[in-house]
């Protein structure tokens, strides 16, 4: 214990090291604050959207005549869906800054409405957000490298390495203390602001603990790598060069390379093709015998088969059958598109089995509910709600019943669900393994340096 205290004092007395830890804590706090600010702005925007929507709906409800035409009401009325930020979204904003977090749908073909995009400023979105995930994945390794690249060479250059090696005690215990101490301090600097932010945002303890645990493992990974780099390098500069090259490779080059490969291997052109196909399916119905469209609709909605046959001229029945039949016609393509998006996510997770940076990003964004999975879950909820809305109107449209203010008031309301969830255990295990292996490697290499002859001596 005394040894630990002594090492702590020694580390904190070094001004650059103490300054680095303070700056890291400040950056972490700043990122937490910035993430919370961004999520608060989204929450306020959602409130504004809800107000705008409620006002529009109230105005429509007031105009709804007692003998209203359900077809007409269904055609014009928008229905609001939204996905509020999960409590931990502030830590890893992920897709929430590029994807819409609210979407209005009408009872028309869903596939033409589902992929509407938000009006983002691409210039601000492109560099990525300054959130905790960024500080953890990109900045923390740089700080760890700054703190540890001269772990041994610093002593060697100061002429103390021989002395330290000849001290009594288990070989490597000194370096283990020093590495673990730095690990603990870096983790502390990073995690204290995060925990405060999680507390203020009302995050659940389990999710918070998992985020903190993942961050701790990632820090441990880099501390291990840094200890290894410091042990195998003769000089501080060589250590820094080696470690920075490792950082550039692991955090910048390999993930971008994998992304380029995924982009190529799993094309998602199905999205645009789906849009083209859906429009074609809906609109060609205008040029076909109407009964054909009705039969296609009845195949998936047999409960309306026995309603009155189509009259001469336009009827809303046929119109909504046409839109639904359009969606049904592209159901397979929509599933393919979804599958392609999902397999991109899967391959990203597979990459995370090998790359700690990707791994921790996946974990954080899953726990924060801001990844592709959360996005798809939201789209599923929109689809389910859209079906509720359609089915609310069908009895009036197909049964030719009037749609009055009371029926309008009973329109289904969207129920949001948090997009956050627990990450796959394999990923967490993989990160633990990567961190454990790196730490073991680092501690072993430093221990070996102590035992071996001093190259400068």
């Amino acid at each position: 214990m005394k040894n630990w205290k002594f090492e702590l004092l020694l580390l904190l007395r070094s001004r650059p090291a103490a300054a680095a830890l303070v700056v890291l804590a400040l950056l972490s706090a700043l990122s937490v604050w910035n993430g919370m600010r961004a999520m608060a702005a989204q929450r306020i925007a959602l409130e504004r959207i809800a107000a705008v929507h409620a006002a529009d709906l109230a105005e429509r409800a007031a105009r709804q005549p007692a003998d209203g035409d359900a077809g007409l009401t269904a055609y014009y009325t928008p229905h609001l869906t939204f996905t509020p930020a999960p409590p931990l979204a502030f830590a890893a904003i992920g897709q929430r800054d590029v994807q819409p977090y609210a979407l209005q749908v009408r009872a028309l073909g869903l596939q033409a409405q589902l992929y509407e995009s938000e009006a983002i400023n691409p210039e601000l979105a492109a560099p990525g957000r300054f959130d905790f995930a960024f500080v953890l994945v990109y900045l923390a390794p740089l700080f760890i490298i700054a703190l540890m690249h001269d772990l041994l060479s610093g002593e060697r250059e100061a002429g103390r390495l021989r002395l330290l090696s000849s001290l009594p005690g288990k070989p490597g215990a000194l370096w283990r203390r020093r590495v673990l101490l730095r690990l603990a301090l870096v983790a502390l600097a990073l995690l204290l602001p995060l925990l405060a932010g999680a507390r203020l945002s009302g995050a659940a303890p389990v999710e918070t603990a998992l985020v903190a645990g993942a961050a701790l493992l990632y820090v441990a990974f880099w501390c291990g790598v840094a200890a290894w780099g410091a042990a195998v390098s003769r000089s501080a500069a060589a250590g820094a060069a080696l470690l920075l090259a490792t950082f550039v490779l692991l955090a910048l080059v390999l993930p971008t390379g994998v992304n380029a490969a995924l982009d190529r291997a799993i094309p998602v052109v199905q999205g645009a093709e789906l849009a083209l196909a859906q429009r074609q399916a809906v609109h060609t119905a205008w040029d076909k015998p109407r009964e054909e469209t009705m039969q296609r609709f009845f195949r998936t909605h047999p409960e309306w088969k026995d309603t009155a046959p189509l009259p001469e001229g336009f009827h809303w029945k046929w119109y909504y059958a046409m839109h639904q039949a359009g969606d049904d016609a592209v159901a397979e393509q929509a599933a393919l598109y979804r599958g392609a998006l999902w397999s991109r996510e899967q391959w990203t997770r597979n990459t995370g089995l090998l790359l700690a940076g990707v791994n921790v990003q996946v974990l954080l964004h899953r726990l924060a509910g801001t990844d592709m999975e959360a996005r798809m879950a939201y789209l599923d909820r929109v689809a389910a709600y859209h079906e509720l809305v359609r089915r609310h109107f069908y009895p009036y449209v197909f049964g030719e019943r009037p749609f009055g203010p009371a029926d309008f008031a009973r329109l289904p309301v969207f129920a949001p669900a948090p997009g956050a969830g627990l990450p796959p255990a394999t990923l967490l295990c993989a990160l633990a393994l990567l961190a454990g292996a790196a730490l073991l490697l680092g501690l072993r290499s430093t221990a070996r340096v102590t035992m071996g002859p001093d190259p400068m001596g």
Partner: protein
Amino acid sequence: MRPAITATAWRVALEEWRALRRSSVAVAAAGLLLALTLAAIVVSLERAHSVEVQRARLQQQADDQWNSQPDRHPHRVVHYGHYVFRPLTALAFFDFGVAPFTGSTLYLEGHRQNSANFSDAGQSSLLLRFGQLTPAFVLQVLAPLLLVFLAFGALARERERGQLRLMLAHGVSGGALLAGKLAAHGLLAVLLAAPALAALALIATADPLLVAPAGWLALGYAAYLLLWSAAAVQVSALARRARDALLLLVGAWALMAVLLPRVLPDVAAGMVPRPTRIEMEAAVHAELARIGDSHNPDDPYFRNFRDSVLKRFGVSKVEDLPVNYKGLVIEEGERLTSELFLAGMQRDFARQAAQGSVLETAALAVPLLALRSMSAAMADTDRAAHERFLLAGEDYRYRLIQALNRLHAEKVTYHDDRAQRISADYWRALPRYQHPPSPLERTVTQRVRPALAIFAGWLVAAALLAAWVARRLERNT
């Protein structure tokens, strides 16, 4: 500079190169960067090509769908609408810019203005947020780190080893020494950029229109990298120990190339709030409701419109008009809504520009922001390029829809309007979407010149600093 000094500086530069060539770390790092640049060029060229092929195919598919419509009522065609896909420009491979964050698919229909959909960012896992392996990324972020590595010891290590004192004692002036080191590392910076710039030159030979943007890009990147090498050499000259120089320079890299380019956009977003799409659409609809409702026969605006049409044609009933009044009403309604769409769009572009101007101001202090802006502008993948696509798409939408409404007014009779169809030849003859070329001159004025001015300012500051550093070198070694 006197010839003797030039000759000495040249000798210093040659000696520095020899030392770098002997350093296995330097050679390996430079080799790694070279390999990365080549990989980035190949990967990006291939990717840009595949995107281009894909969009051309989709556009062809959309055009075929458009042409294969049977004879229809023109208003059906208005609702059928048309798709346009943003084509990729030839230099996009060099810098994807903001393109992955913008939708490339635009659905054009009557009465509505749709968002551009299916952006890469919306369809990628969070891997995309690690950045993209383009030549621009290599030169903007990775090359400065390498330059710093090659240069941090340039003078600091010689000072540590006492060689600096020795050289000055032998009559090498501080100026010549610094000039030599600056020249050595400056040339190195240009050499590191050379493969990427050569790829640019190669692309530019295929199309004379690309020569100017490629030239500006080369100039901008060269200036940016020169700045880094000059800064690195001078920090090395000022630092007491090589280690200090390295830590300081890597810290500066983390700040200027990693941290600030991320933080400042967030600051800009916080300073200029923007409404969401739903709110913007609601605002347009509220304005529209104030003007008039074309579906309401008693609406004052459209009653006036009817009266003026009747007067113009000298008849008293819409049934007596030589044209189809329904077509005219829809045409007028589209004119009104489109005006509002356009105004709403311009308002939002102005807000985005206000956010952009925060970054432009910050670029004075963070050269990477200046480079990023000019690079994406010259590659035609910046926000302005996307806005140009949206505006051209909207303009095309308006002309297409109004041409169809004109057909509705002139080729469909008022009586039993809905039951009629007209020949598909009418809309097959309408023009296709033409993507407008980049307004190069304006872009150069707005994006390139300010960036180059910023680099020039920094380089002048570096030169002034060099004069002082050179004197200081002689005073205290």
